[in-house]
């Protein structure tokens, strides 16, 4: 019954590797997001997609590439991982575009060693 689910929950990988995080929502929402939470708990938006279309693309290295195969899925692929990419990544969804209540996944803790 999970509304927004992400996989994996934990990801440990070496510098230079390429990895993906997957996100799925079963709420029927049109808009999905990726947020990054650093060690100080600061949450920063990275991307948002509305009906598979990229809406927000914050100042994020182009090593990060989101992909939305359909409006229920938003995956995040990261190339050439760096130590500074270590963080918790949260997927979220909202009913429509614009500012409204967002539902978050459980997060993916990425550790780059």
């Amino acid at each position, binding site marked *: 019954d999970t509304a927004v689910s992400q996989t994996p929950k934990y990801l440990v990988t070496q510098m230079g590797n390429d990895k993906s995080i997957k996100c799925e929502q079963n709420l029927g929402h049109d808009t999905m997001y990726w947020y990054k939470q650093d060690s100080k708990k600061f949450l920063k938006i990275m991307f948002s997609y509305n009906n598979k279309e990229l809406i927000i693309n914050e100042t994020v290295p182009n090593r990060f590439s989101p992909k939305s195969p359909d409006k229920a899925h938003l995956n995040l692929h990261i190339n050439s991982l760096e130590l500074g990419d270590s963080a918790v990544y*949260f997927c979220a969804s909202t009913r429509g575009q614009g500012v409204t209540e*967002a539902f978050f996944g459980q997060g993916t803790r990425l550790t780059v060693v």
Partner: protein
Amino acid sequence: GESVGLHLPTLSVQEGDNSIINCAYSNSASDYFIWYKQESGKGPQFIIDIRSNMDKRQGQRVTVLLNKTVKHLSLQIAATQPGDSAVYFCAGPYNTDKLIFGTGTRLQVFP
């Protein structure tokens, strides 16, 4: 730039007491705010929201107060319980298309 920030990084309260978590914002055009609770190892969870045409909104054991004059909002938790221990975020709009989060306040409840 726009910001939504919190005054206190950590708040310690005794079980049964009321908690007040504060938040300041800088964009006077902001018309919607949300409070989120994030427990350890979990994603942020919606608690309560408020629109700028309101000064106060109440939920179950929680109340949000909005003071547009000084651009301040607060979350009040009545009869704080151990299960309320978490990091609390206020969030508000930046332009019309994204939600930005404050820095968070950690609430610690002790017996």
